[in-house]
């Protein structure tokens, strides 16, 4: 991004500080999205100063910074939007988690997505934990009883474990399916919104 040049040293410092705050606030985004936000806010600053030249550099800069507002306050919804877009275009779990955490306040459907995601982590956890607690994790079947997961000895007393160590590949496979399902559902939701 091309920076605006100020004659006044103090104005220049205030401007650079503001740009730095925008950069800090948008850290979670891809370089491209970050640059887009920076360029757009930079353009607001530049155009405002150009259009109101008679007021002087410093007072224009202070005015436009006030008009845009604190990056920490105005950018979160923009960031949440862009992050969601990014998450639906990749299968990177970090993007998905970040997008969900940013959007959780945006509605019930994200809560549902988060629960699905939590389920996914439970599955992955069970697959690993099975190695350490083989007797307590698995698919247990007793008379009129059926359990999947991690249970105490007393709970599974009288039941039979069905999968043995096959539990690990089965659960991993389920996790992968669930993961793709979540991402596709998010993508559909995003498209539906458009």
């Amino acid at each position, binding site marked *: 991004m*091309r920076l*605006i040049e100020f004659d006044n040293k103090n104005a220049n410092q205030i401007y650079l500080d503001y740009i730095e705050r925008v950069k800090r606030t948008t850290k979670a985004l891809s370089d491209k999205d970050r640059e887009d936000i920076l*360029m*757009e*806010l*930079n*353009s*607001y600053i*530049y*155009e*405002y100063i*150009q*259009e109101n030249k008679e007021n002087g550099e410093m007072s224009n800069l202070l005015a*436009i910074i006030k*008009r*845009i*507002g604190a990056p920490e*306050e*105005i*950018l979160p*919804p*923009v960031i949440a*939007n862009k992050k969601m*877009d990014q998450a639906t275009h990749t299968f990177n779990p970090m993007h998905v988690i970040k997008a969900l955490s940013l959007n959780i306040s945006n509605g019930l459907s994200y809560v549902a997505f988060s629960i699905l995601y939590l389920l996914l982590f439970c599955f992955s956890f069970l697959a690993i934990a099975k190695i350490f607690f083989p007797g307590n994790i698995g698919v247990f079947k007793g008379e009129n009883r059926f359990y999947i997961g991690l249970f105490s000895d007393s709970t599974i007393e009288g039941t039979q474990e069905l999968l043995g160590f096959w539990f690990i590949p089965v659960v991993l496979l389920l996790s992968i399916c669930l993961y793709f399902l979540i991402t596709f559902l998010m993508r559909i939701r995003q498209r539906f*919104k*458009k």
Partner: protein
Amino acid sequence: MNEEFLHKWQSQVKKGTLAFILLNLLKDKEMYGYEIIDQISRQVAIDIAEGTLYPLLNRLKTDGLVDSKWVEQQSGIPRKYYTLTLTGKATLDEMSEFWNSLDKSIKKISK
């Protein structure tokens, strides 16, 4: 007259109609941020701060109502021009219809 109530109500109405005003402006012409603010101030006498417009434009873009493109400028600081998409146009038509019928009803009851 309760001035405080009136001011609150006015700012609510302005806030609620901002997207409608914005889409109407973009109907005929592509515009960049400062230009939009300037036009809203001139044509509708509402002063919109950049910090209000920017998130709104962003949301309208996510919702597919507007599209944007960067246009290089001699200054080296490009402008982002916004245009109405086909979805935006169709949505605006429906919004106008709703607005007109609301206007009619309000005129009827406030006679």
